[in-house]
Every structure is written in C-alpha cells, then in structure tokens.
C-alpha cells in the first residue's frame, strides 16, 4: 500500500511538472481550454470534498465563485494581488461558515433549498449595495495578470486541492464525515460533533471555490453581478462531479475533463439548444450512472467475493 501511494505521488508530481509547460506551447486557444479544464477540475473536486462523503447536495458553487470574482473586481486595482486573493479566501470562508452554521444543523433537504437560492440572494445583495451605496453597476477589472499566470495559479490550486483532499481523507475529520454520510444518527451517537465536521469541510470546500473565482476574474475585463453569479457554473460542476463519481477524490476529474470538452464543443455548435442538451446529459447521468464513472470502474474491478455493493438501508 505504501509503495502504491509513493508511486501515485511520483506520477502526480511528474504530471504536474509536465502540465506546467502548457503555456510555453504558445497556442492561445489550447491555453484557454486548459484553463477551463483546470477551473472545472478544481471546482468539481472541491464540490465533492464536501458533498461526496456527506451526501449533502450543494447548489451554491456559483455563490462562492462569484464572491471571489467580485472581490477582485472591487479590490483588484487597489491592493497587491496576493493580498486580494487572501481577502477573497477569507470572505468566502466567512460566508460559508455563516451559511454552514445556520443550515447544516438542519436536514439535508433544507440545505439543498437554501443553497439553491443562495447565489440569487448574494447577487441581489451585491446589486442592492452597488446601486444604493457605491452607485455603480458593473466594474472594470484592470490587473496585470496574463493568461499564463491564471493557468499557473490554477495549476497550483489544483495540486493543493488534491493534497488537501488526500490529507483530509486520512484524518479524523475525513473519517467523521464518512460516518455522517453513512448514517448521521449513528455518527451523533458515536460522539462525533457532526455540525463542526460538516461546517469545517463546507468552509474548506467553499474557500477553494472562492479562490477559483478570484483567480478567474482577470479573464473578464468587465464584471457585473449577472456575469460573476452565473448559476450555470453550479449546474455544470454538479454534473461533472456526478459523472465522475463524488465519493472518490479522483472521481470528479473523470467527469470534469470530458464534460468541459463536450460543453466547449456544444456551446460553439448549438448555442440556442445548449441548455436542453445539458439537461438531457444531466438526466442520462442521474439515471444511467448513479455512482459515476468511478463507481463503474469499481464495479468492473470488483471480484465476485469482494463485491462493492450499494449500501441498502431499511
């Protein structure tokens, strides 16, 4: 097992070094595509870090992405870049902690409902603030960040997220979350502080999403609430994580890569019917692959006596 972990580490490090050279290829289109791939990989992985083990479906990815992007729009020109990122992360963590503390004590369905509207709520608050207090709607983003810089930052964040996910899965927190996902009542009786565990992981996952938004913000020169808080992102991240399989750390990548490429192709070819196609893909995944590609692999790899079966509860 140890040798296998080491092997994985070497392969991952080699992949990281190779990927770092992508901007050197000098092709703007491929660089843009690579940025999209990394963006969705990080978002989908961060989403499953919380939703995979706990089985709480979060529809608020866009809310945090938007908070990050908007922080850059407001502070990007005033403060040095690392400080802006730090503030964005802190803001995302703060919002996530509030949302988590107020909703995660409740049943999972209430959490879904709340996160379903959270993006819209934050957007309305931002619009209200901009119109009434700062008297601008829409801001220009003038920061000295190139596409290659965005790519490298995202790559570093990707590496950090995988490392973090690996560490969490091996920690007490990760174990606590798996117990919660199996049965929350049992978890409580085992003495696990379920609220703390859920809020902590939700906050970590949301902070990563906020950072992605902040890093991606310089791609647009102009930001307004409807661009930063585009709820399509929550939706796409959710499908990617589901297709890949949210119960494995490496699962979401298997969904993020093919779907990003597919969406790229479809949105260019069929701009008018894109939403319908997205919905159909979503339905297909929900019906055909309830445990994602990762689940499919496990099913194929399972030996007859050590079968991975779905947990059947009463």
């Amino acid at each position: 097992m140890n040798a296998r972990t080491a092997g994985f580490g070497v392969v991952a490090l080699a992949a990281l070094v190779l990927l770092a050279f992508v901007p050197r290829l000098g092709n703007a289109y491929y660089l843009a595509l690579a940025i999209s791939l990394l963006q969705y990989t990080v978002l989908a992985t961060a989403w499953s870090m919380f939703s995979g083990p706990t089985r709480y479906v979060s529809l608020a990815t866009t809310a945090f992405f938007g908070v990050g992007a908007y922080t850059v729009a407001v502070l990007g020109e005033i403060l040095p870049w690392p400080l802006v990122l730090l503030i964005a992360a802190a803001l995302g963590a703060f919002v996530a902690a509030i949302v988590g503390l107020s909703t995660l004590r409740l049943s999972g369905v209430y959490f879904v409902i709340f996160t379903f509207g959270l993006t819209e709520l934050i957007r309305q608050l931002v619009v209200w603030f901009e119109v009434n207090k700062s008297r601008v709607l829409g801001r220009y983003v003038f920061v000295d960040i190139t596409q290659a810089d965005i790519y490298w930052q995202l790559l570093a964040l990707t590496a950090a997220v995988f490392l973090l996910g690996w560490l969490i899965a091996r920690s007490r927190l990760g174990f606590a979350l798996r117990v919660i996902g199996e049965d929350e009542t049992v978890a409580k009786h085992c003495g696990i502080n379920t609220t703390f565990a859920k809020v902590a992981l939700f906050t970590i996952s949301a902070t990563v999403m906020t950072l992605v938004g902040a890093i991606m913000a310089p791609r647009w020169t102009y930001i307004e609430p409807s661009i930063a808080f585009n709820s399509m992102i929550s939706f796409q991240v959710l499908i990617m994580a589901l297709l890949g399989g949210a119960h494995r750390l490496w699962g979401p990548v298997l969904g993020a890569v093919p779907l990003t490429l597919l969406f790229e192709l479809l949105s260019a070819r069929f701009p008018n019917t894109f939403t319908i196609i997205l919905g159909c893909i979503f339905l297909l995944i929900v019906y055909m692959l309830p445990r994602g590609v990762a689940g499919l692999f496990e099913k194929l790899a399972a030996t007859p006596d050590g079968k991975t079966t779905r947990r059947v509860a009463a």
Partner: protein
Amino acid sequence: MTNAILTGLMLGGMYALIAMGLTLQYGVARIMNLSYGEFLIAAAFASHWLFTGWAVSPFVGLVLIVPAAFLLNFAIYKLLLTPLVRRAPNRDALEVDSILATFGLTFVIQGSMVALFGGAYYSYSFLAFPVQFLGETVAANRLAALGITILLGLALYLALTRTRAGTAVRAVAVDPFAAQLVAINVSQASALTFALGGALVAAAGVLVSTFLTFSASSGVVFTMKALIVVVMGGVGNMLGCLVAGLALGLSEALVASYVDPGLTLAVNFALFLAVLLVKPAGLFGRATR
C-alpha cells in the same frame, strides 16, 4: 399602509396557492421537485398563447390547461420518477435522486421555452382596470386571481379532508408503510398526488400570467418561493402553507414599500432561516419527521 397590506395579502395568497402543489408533491409523493417553477411558467405561456392567438379568456384557459397539466405530470411521474422510486433504498435517497433528476428537468424545460419564446418578457392585458376594494384601488385581474385562489384552496381542503381518496392521500403523507398495511395503493396515490400538484401549479401559472410579466427563465424564482413556503409551513401541511404564504407575501410587500424593493429575496431568506432555526419542522410541522 392599507395598500401595502392588501398587496401583501394578494401576493401571499398567490404564494400559498403556488406552494400548495409543491407541498403535495413533496409531502405525499416525496419528490422534491426543483423544476416546479418551470411548470408554472409553461402554463403561463400556454395561457398567453391561448389569449393572444385565439382570444381564449384565461378563465376558459384554466379549464383547458389544468387537466392537460394533470395528465402531463401523471405521465412524468410514471415514466421519469417511478424508476427512481423503485431504485431508492430509502426515502432520503429518493429525495436526493429526485432533486437531481428534476434539476436536470429544469434545464430541459427552461431551454425548450427559451428556444420557443426567446428570452423576452411576456405579458397580456386582461381585466386590467381598477376597482374599489376595502377603500383601496386595486387591479381587477389581481382581485379575480385572488378569488379563484381562495376557491381552489377551499376545494382542495375539502377534497383532502372530506373524501375517501383525500384521506388516503393524507395517510400516505403521514406514513407510507402503514398506509400500505390498510390497503392503500401507495404508488397509485403518489402518482395521482404528484399529478394533482402539477395541476395546481398550472392553475397558479395561468392566474399569475394575468397580472405579472414573465419570461422563459423566471421559473427559478417561483420554485424558490414555493420551497420556502413549504418548508416554513411544515411539509405537507395545507394550513401551514396558507399562513407561511401570507407571511411571505406580507413581509415582501412591507419591505418593498418601506425599505427597498431590491431586498425582497433577502427578506424571504431571513424569514426562512428564522423559522427553521426556531422550529426546524416548520410552523405547523410535527416535531419528528
């Protein structure tokens, strides 16, 4: 002040009607339908099309659209949702699966409506004259919508409490397993209740279209408000639905006229959270679920 309260009550009555269908679908059939608002908008478009294309009054439209919606939703439950019900090992799993499936459905319906009607806002002029009501001037179409809402709510209440089928539906809502033991066909009751919920939201859609502008993408807002009302009132509870709907409408109207119209959603969420933190089962919900 009277005007704000009156507006709030009318709005609240509408929210209550919209949420009634969802509370049936979720409370009885256990389907958390995230595409609920899309069905409302689809009915609004149907009404618009009948009125502008064929000069069919929305009141007549109601008679055509509501049964069609009932059949459509029955088919959706049978074809799309029954496989999920069969595959789910327990109720929680069904909830998650239904959330995901109807979320996908949202995009299919919304995308189809955008492809058909574009992104523009639609409205039509129906009964758009002022009338005097309780010493205030209100639009006749809103008053008519309120009247029909009250009639529908009353009819539903009587059907659920006074008929045999209604009693069966309420039994399924309380405990589907025990309902089966007293010879209630749970899957049939679920399918019919889901369809009934769809018929109610279609009625709400027709009524909304007579006095509000709507677009292909405005369904999400209605879904959200319906969800908030359902949870606030206590899942599956008709009286809770009414009280929560009125509370939501009133608070929205008051905030819009005295604080800022841009903060109505924030008020919705504040109310939602406040109720959940004090009474997690909703205003009229049972303590254990």
